[in-house]
């Protein structure tokens, strides 16, 4: 950039190089229908999901089945027990977090649900958490239950044997992606179209 020519009045003073412009905006959120149903369940220490016409159960529900693009009209209660499908061990304190490090943030597939939720695993050393481990919800004290998923403090091992065959969402059609190097590119037909029922090398991994 070419040299700036300043007028005499500001030529010999310390130039401003940055400016603070704090800004606060206030919002009032509403939860919407599906989330309200879910949080109403939480207040009663129940985990409520919603079922889509195709049978999928979503927890927490967001009102739409993203595969069908349709509303999920049926409320269903799922178990408070599930299986770890993946996880990471966190060794850093994040904003607003009061966790003792290391802690485990895991994907947990609740029995009866089709999609893993993300939550904390406690009451077990971090290095002993495993994919396939069975875990159960631990709630806050009754007096502290609020309409937030944080009312489930964390999950802890149930002591059951690991579910070594846990269906990891998405893995069902993994084989359909193969053979690129042999010259066969994947197509939409690799998976079953939930609207038409066409395609799919497996039954959408439901097995």
């Amino acid at each position: 950039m070419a040299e700036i020519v300043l007028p005499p009045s500001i030529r010999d003073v310390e130039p401003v190089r940055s400016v603070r412009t704090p800004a606060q905006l206030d919002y009032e959120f509403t939860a919407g229908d599906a989330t309200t149903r879910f949080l109403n369940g939480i207040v009663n220490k129940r985990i409520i999901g919603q079922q889509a016409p195709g049978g999928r159960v979503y927890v927490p529900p967001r009102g739409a089945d993203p595969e069908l693009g349709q509303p999920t009209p049926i409320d269903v209660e799922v178990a408070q027990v599930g299986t770890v499908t993946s996880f990471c061990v966190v060794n850093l304190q994040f904003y607003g977090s009061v966790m003792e490090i290391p802690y485990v943030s895991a994907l947990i597939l609740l029995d009866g649900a089709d999609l893993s939720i993300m939550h904390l695993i406690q009451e077990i050393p971090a290095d002993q958490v495993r994919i396939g481990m069975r875990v159960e919800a631990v709630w806050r004290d009754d007096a502290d239950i609020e309409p937030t998923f944080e009312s489930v403090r964390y999950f802890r091992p149930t002591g059951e044997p690991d579910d070594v065959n846990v269906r990891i969402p998405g893995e069902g059609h993994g084989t359909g992606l193969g053979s690129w190097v042999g010259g066969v590119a994947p197509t939409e037909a690799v998976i079953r179209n939930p609207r038409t029922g066409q395609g799919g090398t497996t039954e959408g991994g439901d097995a």
Partner: protein
Amino acid sequence: MRDVAIISFAQTPMRRRVDELNEVEMLMPAVHGALAQVDMTIDDIGFTCSGSTDYLAGMAFSFVSTLDAVGPWPPIQESHVEMDGAWALYEAWVKLQLGEIDTALVYAYAKSSPGDLPMVLTRQLDPITMGPLWPDSVSIAALQARALLDTGRVTEGDLAEVAVRSRRDALANPNAQLAWDRGLDDHLAEDYLVAPLRRSDCPPITDGAAAIVWAAGDEARSKVDRPAWIRGIDHRIEPIHLGLRDLTVSESTRIAAEKAGVADGPVDVAEIHAPFTHQELILRQAMGLGGSTAINPSGGALCANPMMTAGLVRLGEVANRISAGTADRGVAHATSGPCLQQNLVCVLEGDN
């Protein structure tokens, strides 16, 4: 240019606040309504594009979860603009011109109700020299209205006529948020909200969603009797600083209208995205729209102003009138930014 037409349009009822639905829940009826009218599903769509902005509801990446409304599975060709849905429609039009796909879905939505909209919109302004003063969107529009009145070309009565006509026309629009039949005197008797603008010179704050289905050539003819063909579409922008523009005219609209070919034939109907009454007068002049054109028969943005959606609704309202045979040639306009900073103009025609 390849012949491309709007073949379907759907919108939700426009309301001050839609508390009971999240964004994806609110959007689904519009998307599925537009698809169902032409007996299509997402599987029949070649390209999907949407318009929205994170600032309204205060949530980053809100468009990510609203994509669930269309059911993007198996994966789809899709894009998103942080603009009014009218520009999403423009992107889809460009895509259709390439000749590789024959259909497109465009949608837009806004929940403005969680925030304080006139203050949220101050975040669009220059963040160092304007934003810290928090000049709300109504005040900024009022500066433009005063500049226009000062030219002597229009009076407060002319502004009132726009408001009265728009709210009256909206009585026939089941999706309108505001509609009434009041006289000019009632309007002029109102106190100023931010002088020289009265409350009724201003748009409502609106939650709502809309969707449009596009098709090219024979695909469009096979779906509807009278597709609304795009004959020209263009958009232009000006600097954001009010002091760098003549606020009493809309130069960007004038250029866009010229490029889109507005003057190439008679205009039966025009849907103009003018959130404030005086802006309709500026835009009519910029597009050269005269007395024979029906202006904003839907009631326009004065009757429902879903941010990032109201421009797309203008396109849908014109297309509906062409498809219904009540108009042969129409103009749709969308705007963005303070005081009509950015404008899109589209000319649509039916087959004769």
